[in-house]
């Protein structure tokens, strides 16, 4: 049964991916990518990699679609027709593909007990982590403790990505636009007392009275999305999830708010300055835990020294580190959304 599920899903995945390649309209391609992401998450679930599936679910179902659309709103959704046939790249990719497929024949059989994956460090994690870390979800203990340094690197990457997007897109915007309410930073905060609707630019007020249903339902749902994100954040030790997934879901709550009520109001609740602050805060929190453990006589990110009892120290360290990840990811996602949605001028309906 499991094999049937896997193979069926793989076939669906291939069909979806090929159709993404074939469609010329980028908007349709975005939709199909959403479907591909669903199927991908299902494959992860079927392979029992729940934490990965969780990430795929959180990112693929909402955020990535939103960000793709934010890009499409900037560049339009029609693909430029290719001028010439790309014969050489096709040949190269075919050759590489053949070589890779050929190489898989030499790989050990899937799921065998004596595979290197099963014999290298995994047994140690499985045997020792309940004693050393004491966290029920082993994925979390590997990610945040054994591989804490790698995860620190990942958080820095997300931080850099957020800062980079903010830098590039808001610089361009400042050159081209001079609407007062769109500049980020302190101005947004001082504008708060003004009549919001009056200070919103015409593009902010786009919308119609016909959208009452999404309006009311979103109001109902937003608190629960936010709460669920926090639940995922704090239960990463026990079940699937953790800082990364929580951050994405938390950001999704704000993005939903922004989609319904407009970017302007969202900026009043979470100003760009606050986003930048949080973006840095998460990384500092993560790094700070490492530095504190240095001062307490351990190695960088060695949580054992954080408390008298090593297991309690590990627990505390993982908690703080995951919180740092969550804060940075939330801020990065919101920052990227702000940057994209804030620049969009509205290309109109060039989809059909």
């Amino acid at each position, binding site marked *: 049964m499991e094999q049937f599920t896997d193979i069926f899903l793989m076939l669906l995945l291939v069909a979806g991916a090929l159709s993404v390649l074939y469609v010329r309209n980028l908007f349709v391609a975005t939709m*199909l990518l959403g479907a591909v992401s669903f199927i991908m998450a299902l494959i992860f*679930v079927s392979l029992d990699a*729940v934490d990965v599936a969780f990430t795929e679910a959180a990112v693929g*179902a909402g955020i990535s679609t939103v960000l793709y659309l934010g890009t*499409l709103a900037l560049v339009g959704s029609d693909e430029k027709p290719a001028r010439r046939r790309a014969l050489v790249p096709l040949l190269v990719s075919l050759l590489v593909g053949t070589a890779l497929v050929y190489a898989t024949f030499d790989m050990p059989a899937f799921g065998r007990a004596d595979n290197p994956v099963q014999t290298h460090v995994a047994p140690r994690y499985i045997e020792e982590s309940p004693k050393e870390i004491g966290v029920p979800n082993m994925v979390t203990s590997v990610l945040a403790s054994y591989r804490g340094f790698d995860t620190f690197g990942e958080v820095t990457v997300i931080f850099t990505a957020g800062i980079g997007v903010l830098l590039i897109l808001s610089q361009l915007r400042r050159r081209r636009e001079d609407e007062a309410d769109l500049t980020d930073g302190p101005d947004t905060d001082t504008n708060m007392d003004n009549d919001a609707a009056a200070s919103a630019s015409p*593009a902010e007020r786009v919308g119609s009275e016909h959208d009452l249903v999404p309006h009311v339902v979103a109001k109902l749902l937003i608190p629960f999305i936010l709460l669920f994100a926090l639940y995922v954040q704090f239960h990463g030790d026990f079940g699937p999830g953790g800082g990364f997934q929580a951050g994405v879901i938390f950001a999704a709550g704000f993005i939903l708010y922004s989609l319904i009520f407009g970017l302007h109001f969202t900026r009043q609740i979470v100003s760009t300055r606050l986003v930048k602050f949080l973006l840095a805060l998460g990384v500092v929190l993560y790094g700070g835990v490492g530095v504190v453990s240095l001062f307490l006589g351990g190695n960088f990110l060695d949580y054992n020294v954080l408390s008298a009892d090593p297991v309690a120290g590990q627990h505390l360290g993982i908690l703080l580190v995951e919180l740092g990840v969550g804060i940075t990811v939330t801020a990065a996602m919101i920052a990227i*959304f702000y940057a994209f*949605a804030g620049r969009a001028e509205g290309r109109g309906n060039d989809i059909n």
Partner: protein
Amino acid sequence: MSIFAVTAIAILVSAAMALGRAILGPTSYDRILAVNAIGTKTVLLIAVLGFMNGRPDFLDLALVYSLVNFVGTLAVLKYFKFGTLRGGLSGTRKRGN
């Protein structure tokens, strides 16, 4: 063959049909509908697979999908209607009752 397996196969077949609609189109709205349907089926399949493998904690994933999928769909439709993600959907934040 357990009942969960039967259900899983039914969900998979149904998802494949929806994917067929997503690929066929013809309008973009059909594709949105199809992708949305695939989303619902994903939630169902995650729940059923969770029970099949005896790990009902998969349900957290199903919850994520049921909440976050909505955000994606709304974004798509908003882009569709207005060509931008910037403004609000219903003009003002406060609506009188």
